[in-house]
């Protein structure tokens, strides 16, 4: 038998992490955001527990501002056999009509950070899988695979548990929890190669198509529904674009591209000159230390 390739080894490591969590946690859950990383994580989980069903539900922390195509993908997954999907919206954010146009950083804070904490507390989940990768952002590069959170969901970068070999310490006291990142050692390129190799379905927004867009603050934004507010002088223009990362549509920058297949995307990446998080308005809130601050507050 030939030796394992790097994708084989990444896959085996992720499956090990998924199984270790399920063996040690009382009530695990998988954070599911409809993106490519979620799709890969879900695929790995199915492999890890085959031929049994997924031994945990999926949780989508909704902001009401995702792309329509993402909601369609969520519904497609939720309808599959053996999948239990919980969608949660922070009632306070809903009540106050929190939106990305009027509320700036508060939008992410209330819908995502607070929404996530509420959903985890409500269901008593003590371990939550997230699809974050260490190559995405500098402060993620230092986070553990099993990331301990205190009773208030806070992350303390100075008090992280040393993580040796593949020995993960998942022990915790009542009320404390773990965020677990099975894709920690994957890169964006690994994810796409794996999507291609395994034939994993992803949201069509990743592929280039003619879409109604506006250009704002250097980002190309898609006009996904009538709630999109236009500044004076802004014009909706059809552009052939695709997305490298997905989030709330008014905050997700598109790239102009002709890549219509996974192979095209990989070809484009090889020639690419920008990183994927560049299209994320939310990372810019407080300069380059912004993600670290969010994480300490309990953001994923």
């Amino acid at each position: 038998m030939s030796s394992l390739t790097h994708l084989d080894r990444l896959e085996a490591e992720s499956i090990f992490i998924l199984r270790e969590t399920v063996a040690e946690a009382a009530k695990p859950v998988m954070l599911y955001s409809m993106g490519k990383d979620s799709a890969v994580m879900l695929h790995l989980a199915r492999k890890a527990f085959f031929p049994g069903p997924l031994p945990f539900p999926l949780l989508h922390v909704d902001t009401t501002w995702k792309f329509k195509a993402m909601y369609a993908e969520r519904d497609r997954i939720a309808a599959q056999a053996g999948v239990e999907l919980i969608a949660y919206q922070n009632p306070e954010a809903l009540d106050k009509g929190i939106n990305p146009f009027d509320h700036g950083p508060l939008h992410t804070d209330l819908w995502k950070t607070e929404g996530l904490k509420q959903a985890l507390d409500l269901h008593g989940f003590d371990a939550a899988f997230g699809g974050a990768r260490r190559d995405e952002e500098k402060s993620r590069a230092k986070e553990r695979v099993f990331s301990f959170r205190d009773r208030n969901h806070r992350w303390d970068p100075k008090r992280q548990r040393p993580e040796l070999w593949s020995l993960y310490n998942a022990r915790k006291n009542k009320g404390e929890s773990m965020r677990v990142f099975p894709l920690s050692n994957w890169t964006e390129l690994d994810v796409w190669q794996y999507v291609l190799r395994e034939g994993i379905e992803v949201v069509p927004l990743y592929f280039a198509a003619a879409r109604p867009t506006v250009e704002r603050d250097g980002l190309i934004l898609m006009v996904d529904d009538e709630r999109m507010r236009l500044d004076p002088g802004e014009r909706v223009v059809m552009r052939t674009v695709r997305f490298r990362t997905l989030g709330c549509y008014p905050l997700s920058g598109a790239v102009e591209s002709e890549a219509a297949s996974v192979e095209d995307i990989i070809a484009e990446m090889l020639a690419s000159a920008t990183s994927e998080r560049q299209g994320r308005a939310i990372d810019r809130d407080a300069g380059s230390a912004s993600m670290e601050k969010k994480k300490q507050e309990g953001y994923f």
Partner: protein
Amino acid sequence: MPAVREWLAAQEQKELLRFTTCGSVDDGKSTLIGRLLYETKQIFDDQLAALESDSKRHGTQGEKIDFALLVDGLSAEREQGITIDVAYRYFASEKRKFIVADTPGHEQYTRNMVTGASSADLAVLLVDARKGVLTQTRRHSYLAHLVGIRRFVLAVNKMDLVDYDQGPFDAISAEYRAFAGKIGVEDWIAIPVSGLNGDNVAASSQATAWYSGPSLLDHLNDVPLDVSADAAKPFRMPVQWVNRPNQDFRGFAGQIASGTVKAGDDIRILPSGRETRIERIVEAGGDLAEAVAGQSVTLTFADEVDCSRGNVIAVSSDPPEVADQFEATLVWMADEPLLPGRGYWLKSGTQTVTATVHEPKYEINVNSLEHLAAKSLELNAIGVAEIATDRDIAFEPYAVEGSSPNRVLGGFILIDKLSNATVACGMLHFALRRAHNIHRQHLDVGRETHAALKGQKPAVLWFTGLSGAGKSTIANLVEQKLAARGRHTFLLDGDNVRHGLNRDLGFTEADRIENIRRVGEVARLMADAGLIVMTAFISPFRAEREMVRKMLPEGEFIEVFVDTPLAEAEKRDAKGLYAKARAGELKNFTGIDSPYEAPEDAEIRIDTTAMSAEQAADLIVDEMLRRS
């Protein structure tokens, strides 16, 4: 697009190398990694633009790009200009994908260095061409070698600052050669580099025409991988999880630690020693004919044999050893020092058991390699000690001469039972002989017989509380009341035991733990004899009370928390001890300068400010009789 297909086909064959980088604070480690990322095109335009602006603001390279800023992640680090935790970096060459564990240099972060090195195949040691081999270089070589790294690169950095001169490079190589021989590092290479300018990083440099060896990247591309060595060893797989979706399927999921497995192989399950045959290697895309070290698989057996998480499946002709006492090297990673005798969780593979560590045989001075006498291990200390587990575990010696280390069955971590923090990591050397030879004596007249003859259910009533709380007084009354009802009892009192059995112990934390351990053992023997035992000890630490609880069968340990507030106990002060402690004449006095960890879920709690000793004793006797 044939070009992409071709490229993808090549990607499919790419291997994975994990390496770690270590060096002293100013050796330019982050700069070198930043340079590697840059040279292998891992840095995108937007990151480069951010880097240029960051370099002007925080950088230390004047107008030049400060590559270190790419790597130093957390804001605290950026402010202090040092790396304070392990950071993982990813890049790829035409041949391999690389995972880099970038670990900090200064002494107090030894634990991070060991963490980064634990999963690496190779270590890149940075030295400054102007400074040569430092204490830090020796320390890092020793630590990396200790955790099983056998391949080293000595990257002699900042060659630009010595005019790319061969002299300093040769001197440093010679100095390192002498040291490497001493600690058993055989496979190493010295490469002259400049992280700042990129010389010999990705390609050979004209500036060092006198150097004919490979560039750093070329060497990383060609070095052999540990995973290939693991595949050649006998088959072992720790069971992670039993997959039982319905009555018809029972699969054992895990990642293969070493060797290969195929359907029909005879296997043994450890520690039970039961044997069976592999029936299938189940995978979503169809059963596999064979699987190899590193793969995560699900196995099924030909027979219905007991097997659960923590067990190890091994080839039956060559299984690993099973034991409950070991010698091991420990690296202490917590602020609280090792407490010999205290019970910690030990996790090795997927097995989690309770373990106690004896007083270390010695501590190792990492700088001089001397063995020093030690009673404990402090943060970042490395020592050798004996360890006892509460049950048998399957294991293998961590270090293997001339091969890759047995990371999965030879490495372990210790976890504090209260805080759940990872306090140490360790590497098993060998099983102690006495663990092989001493088997517990099987007794024909057992504890059930003892209890039946006395017509009672044995129990240990464990009274805990501050000095002067009223433990002995209440325990005495309880014993009188039980004796009056014809029960066979015995009272172990703190002061009495300290005059006899434990008169060699003082009041340090370690001695207090040993005190309770001995009392626990005696109480257990008495319960085995069928007695109802009462103990009256301050027993201030939760961990030790839990240790005694675990010695006894479920339900036989009854914790009685005699809850008297400190102010009240101090007011009573029947023995005048609090006055002495306040005057500084008594050290380590519980409640004054030593903590009392109150029980969280005691079976019985007595509030002595709300009831008399007589009432308390009645309440305890009633509860006691209700339970039996």
